[in-house]
């Protein structure tokens, strides 16, 4: 009789670069279908934790389990390569800077991995690409190259590329941080749609509004530890930890300052327009 396992299970994750401890003994679990946001100041270790889940950054201690299988197994090089490649096929990842393949069309960006790793025929792969791109509203750009797309469009294609491998889990590493403000929404909408379809998602983000509206749970990290976690209503409105309060206060102030600056710029532009 095996014990019921957690879908994502991070046990005592530690990561150090020499003396610098980036992750200090973090344990957390994520249920199947759960949508979790990780927030925190830069340097808090949130991206490192996310990247440790599919071993892009290797932990120096601790374990990561996905659906009952340990991801960061200790194996000889060749065996480990085989193991990690198989694991990564089940974990989609979306990056801040999209990392689309510039030498491939949108279609080929989406179909490359399924063709190579799952042996899909050209026809099957094309069908898959059309489905996935349609899902993110990018079907009409299927024969474009990444350089011909806006940031928001690139990110939507990157999401389609990850989804084409039919992952069990999606990781988002500040997926909208590199986007112009007016392009954030289209990516958020795609992520919201995924959430409605009950994809398990771990989202590292700076966007509190998005986290609040989409996520089941918010994890606040600072200096390599999980300071506080809970439903967004609690973490955002009623945080218990002083560090969380301070972070949210600062973040809110920044947010307001930014909005004010944008509003001021807009007014100035309009005034200029009027003066002409």
């Amino acid at each position, binding site marked *: 009789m095996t014990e019921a396992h957690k879908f994502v299970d991070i046990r005592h994750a530690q990561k150090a670069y020499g003396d610098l401890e980036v992750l200090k003994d973090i344990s957390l679990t994520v249920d199947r279908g759960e949508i979790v946001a990780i927030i925190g100041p830069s340097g808090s270790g949130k991206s490192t934790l996310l990247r440790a889940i599919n071993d892009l950054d290797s932990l120096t201690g601790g374990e990561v389990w996905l659906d009952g299988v340990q991801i960061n197994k200790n194996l000889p090089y060749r065996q480990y390569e085989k193991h990690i*490649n198989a694991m990564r096929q089940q974990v989609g990842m979306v990056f801040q800077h999209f990392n689309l393949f510039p030498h491939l069309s949108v279609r080929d960006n989406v179909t490359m991995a399924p063709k190579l790793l799952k042996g899909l025929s050209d026809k099957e792969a094309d069908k898959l690409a059309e489905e996935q791109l349609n899902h993110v509203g990018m079907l009409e750009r299927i024969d474009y190259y990444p350089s011909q797309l806006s940031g928001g469009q690139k990110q939507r294609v990157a999401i389609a590329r990850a989804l084409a491998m039919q992952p069990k889990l999606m990781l988002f590493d500040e997926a909208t941080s590199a986007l112009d403000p007016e392009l954030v929404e289209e990516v958020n909408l795609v992520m919201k749609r995924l959430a409605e379809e009950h994809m398990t998602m771990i989202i590292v983000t700076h966007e509190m509004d998005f986290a609040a509206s989409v996520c089941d749970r918010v994890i606040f990290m600072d200096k390599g530890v999980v300071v506080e976690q809970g439903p967004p209503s609690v973490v955002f409105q009623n945080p218990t930890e002083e560090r969380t309060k301070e972070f949210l206060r600062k973040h809110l102030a920044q947010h307001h300052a930014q909005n004010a600056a944008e509003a001021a710029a807009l007014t100035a532009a309009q005034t200029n327009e009027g003066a002409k």
Partner: protein
Amino acid sequence: MDIELILKVYPYFLEAAVVTIELSVLTVLLGLICGALAAAARMSRFRLLRIIGAVYVSVFRGTPALIQLFLLYFGGPQIGIQLDAFEAGVIGLGLNIGAYMAETMRGAIVSVDGGQTEAARTLGLSRAQAFRKVTLPQAMRLMIRPLGVNINAQIKGTALVAAISVVELTYTAQRYIGSTYKPFEMFFLAGVLYIIIITVTGKGITYLDRKARLP
């Protein structure tokens, strides 16, 4: 300038130019092979291969090509390597330019954004698949122009084999000076032929680069 003399000797120079082109093509091909192997060795996960690659590159870039040629052609027989002048020229200069090309290729490969490999690995591609499908196609585009610079240098570099008496352009010019006493005309003619070869090659590189450019 003695135009009549030039018109009289130029067919012999054309023949010599063919030898220069042969030398260029063969040394560049050998250089590309050695360069690719050395670049791969330098980026290998095995320390021994990395050391071998690094030693090759620093030895061939750190000594004059002329010394390398002399060592191979004159010193070779002493250790049982018997080559005629043309063979020694191709092998010596090919190994030499290979060291430069190795650095060019490695430079292009490392300048492909690391996020590209990460994205490929995240999808489940192996190291080799990520390299072949994602890094290399981008690096190849980046290396066309700098390899063109190497090739340009190599074409002119073939003049060195005149020193081991391979009958190519420079050697031919020197030989005709001996009988005509007209160094200006002879070197001028050789120079014109070099510049034609270089220009045509340069156009070819530009064409390839444009063809490989991404939208």
